[in-house]
């Protein structure tokens, strides 16, 4: 018998989300992921000072705000014709790396661990009716200890970010040209010393912890595969002297890797709460209203596509595309990849620190062009993030953001489910009254619904080619 279930809220993510699943014979036969918050950043940005986008767009997300400061800065630099110096790029990427560390530590311990580890019941917040806890007591206790100990390391990661970024979340440091302040030796060594502790923790505890979970939850290597279409815009890449420290812009589909081409991105809204557009010619300049009365719609998240296909983006995609992890594509592989990536990022930040020249000033008095277009595409904590903007009369006339979670948690389009929806389909559910399997798979994507559901452009088949010069 077919039965419908809903999980809402999906806690331990950023933002608000519902999972709906149709279950037949203890197996998911259909699934929907729904984003349930809407703000409308694109509409808000219109008419604002272009420089303000750097600080304004950070407010999209409290756990990955640095990502938006980077993408908006790249889009501005593109529009203004500013090429940052290599030192500027190193410094900016160091701040970005600190955010990866903060995010991945928090996501693994505070968001993921409660799915697999029984936490002490004397904390009401950590009490759970979830079941299927399989770790023997001694190992469970070790991971509980690390859940609490990790709080200090994620906090320290934000401290590193603030040393050069002013504060976190919502840093002040990342800006056109690199960062605002100069990296003096006291600051460099402060970051280096904090990074040392963070690296030790990841290497000695976080990585063993994730493999402990993998040992007892081996069935999750066979769940949550999805389409196995992987996408990265690249990050920590193409430095003049250092080359690519992580991953170049690449896609993987049908078992083959090819070079990413931004012109192949489209975005559709068949099943999202936006009015369908009629005139598809200048779709990016359209500004249709949100429409919650649309019969088939079920989410604020739109449907970005690459070559008309849904794609997965994030740590597993990056490690796969850079050739560093090829064990498989599944819920557990995704979770392991995020943890392994934390160590990778810590090493990269260290390399960048060692290549800094202290006291370099990167700022000058920039001016906004009368009119311009720009784009900023970069891989961030959760995956591929794109900002596109247009400037007219020296103010923002158009802004578009496609977030990693919009890729991963997208609605369906052209009868093809979104990536996480596809990953959920086929999942065996042991206890229909306590379907722990679904939350585990969805959290493996590290959803950020705050990010995914802010956008106000609508319409069918928005082709982002048109905002690119």
């Amino acid at each position, binding site marked *: 018998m077919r039965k419908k279930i*809903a*999980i*809402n*809220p*999906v*806690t*331990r993510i*950023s933002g*608000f989300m519902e999972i709906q699943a149709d279950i037949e014979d203890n197996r998911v036969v259909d699934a929907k992921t729904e984003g349930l*918050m*809407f*703000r*409308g950043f694109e*509409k*808000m940005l219109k008419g*604002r*000072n272009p*420089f*303000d986008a750097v*600080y*304004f767009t950070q*407010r*999209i*997300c*409290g*756990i990955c*705000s640095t990502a938006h400061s980077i993408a908006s800065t790249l889009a501005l630099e593109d529009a203004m014709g500013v090429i940052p110096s290599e030192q500027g790029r190193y410094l900016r990427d160091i701040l970005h790396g600190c955010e990866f560390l903060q995010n991945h530590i*928090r996501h693994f311990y*505070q*968001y993921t661990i409660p799915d697999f580890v029984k936490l002490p019941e004397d*904390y*009401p*917040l*950590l*009490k*759970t*009716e979830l079941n299927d806890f399989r770790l023997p007591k001694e190992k469970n206790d070790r991971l509980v200890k690390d859940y609490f100990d990790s709080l*200090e390391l*994620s*906090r320290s990661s934000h401290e590193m970010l*603030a040393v050069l*970024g*002013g*504060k*976190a*979340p*919502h840093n*002040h440091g990342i*800006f056109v040209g690199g960062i*605002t*302040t*100069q990296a003096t030796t006291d600051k460099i060594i402060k970051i280096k010393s904090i990074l040392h502790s963070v690296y030790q923790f990841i290497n000695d505890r976080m990585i063993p912890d994730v493999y402990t979970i993998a040992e007892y939850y081996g069935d999750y290597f066979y769940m949550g595969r999805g389409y196995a279409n992987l996408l990265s815009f690249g990050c920590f890449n193409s430095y003049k002297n250092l080359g690519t420290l992580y991953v170049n812009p690449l896609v993987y589909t049908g078992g083959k890797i090819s070079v990413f081409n931004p012109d192949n991105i489209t975005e559709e809204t068949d099943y999202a709460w936006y009015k369908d557009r009629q005139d598809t010619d200048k779709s990016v300049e359209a500004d249709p209203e*949100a429409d919650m009365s649309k019969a088939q719609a079920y989410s604020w998240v739109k449907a970005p596509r690459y070559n008309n296909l849904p794609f997965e983006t994030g740590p597993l995609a990056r490690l796969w595309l850079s050739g560093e992890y090829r064990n498989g594509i599944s819920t557990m592989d995704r979770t392991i990849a995020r943890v392994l990536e934390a160590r990778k990022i810590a090493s990269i930040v260290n390399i960048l620190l060692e290549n800094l020249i202290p006291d370099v000033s990167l*700022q*000058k*008095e920039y001016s906004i062009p009368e009119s311009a277009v720009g784009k900023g595409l970069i891989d961030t904590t959760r995956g591929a993030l794109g900002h596109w903007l247009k400037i007219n009369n*020296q*103010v923002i006339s158009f802004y578009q953001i496609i977030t990693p979670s919009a890729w991963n948690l997208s609605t369906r389009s052209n009868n093809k489910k979104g990536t996480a929806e596809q990953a959920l389909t086929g999942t065996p559910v042991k206890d229909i009254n306590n379907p722990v399997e679904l*939350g585990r798979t969805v959290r493996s994507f590290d959803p950020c619904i*705050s990010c995914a559901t802010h956008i106000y452009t609508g319409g069918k088949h928005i082709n982002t080619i048109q905002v690119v010069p």
Partner: protein
Amino acid sequence: MDTYNVSTTCPEYKARQNIAANLLETINTKSRQGCLKKRNLVWLELTGCSGNIISLLDGSNPDFLYLISKMTHFIYNNSLSANEGQKAMEQLFSILGSDYILAVEGAVATKNNGLYNIIGRLNGKPITALEAVKTLGEKAAFVIAVGACATHGGVSAARPNPAECVSVQSVLNRKVIKLPGCPCHPDWFMGTLAHILLYGEPELDSRDRPVLFYSTLIHDRCPRRSYFDKGIFAQKLGDKTCMFKLGCRGPVTRTDCPIRQWNEYVNWPIEDDTPCIGCAQFGFPDAMEPFISYNTTREVKR
């Protein structure tokens, strides 16, 4: 220093000694009587970026672990609760009927009767942020609005305010303690909560901000104030002098950022050679823009 001289020359010396002794006695008595007992805390996330709970996790001494172990029974938060779905919602609403403190981050989306933000499903019925904050807000012992979106709409309500977001106060007919900031500094929250636990409501200004944190303009305590007084102004970000002409909102923003600083007290925007953008002042962001402009004394094209 010779205390004998102080006590004979200062007329207030004895009175001050008495005040200190009395305060200490009060604390001792209260803690003996068990007045420092933990209270229930619910932290609701509404329409926003969930950055205030992240900022809270960035706090140290007291840190998050101390908060949930020694200060509160922390009942519910969307980012951190181990439970999910129906069970999580039951846990949240089980608090009704008990004594609890409600912290709220995010604005309240009012468009379509609140349907622009659904925070969960209870017994099959979707619960809007609007409904949740009204239900929980009315019965709470204290309501603390944490961060700009909760205190006055913040970025969620930036023009043209597509989700028709409003402050927590706008939907509650009761006192709401306001901790503006984008995000709120963890100490501003912890200090306010500690005051409630130890002594009840802290002293608030006319806009319900704790005087302890929000009484003084950034400009009045800015380490670069002497440059302002001498008329030495920064030309660009990264300069070490007064950033007034780059659009610094320190002269209109009341917080203790200059002396407190952020993230383990390691830095703050002005020390990072950028202007304050007034994130902790009512009116942020619209009234505080442009955030960056290279010379505010020149004509700025709008």
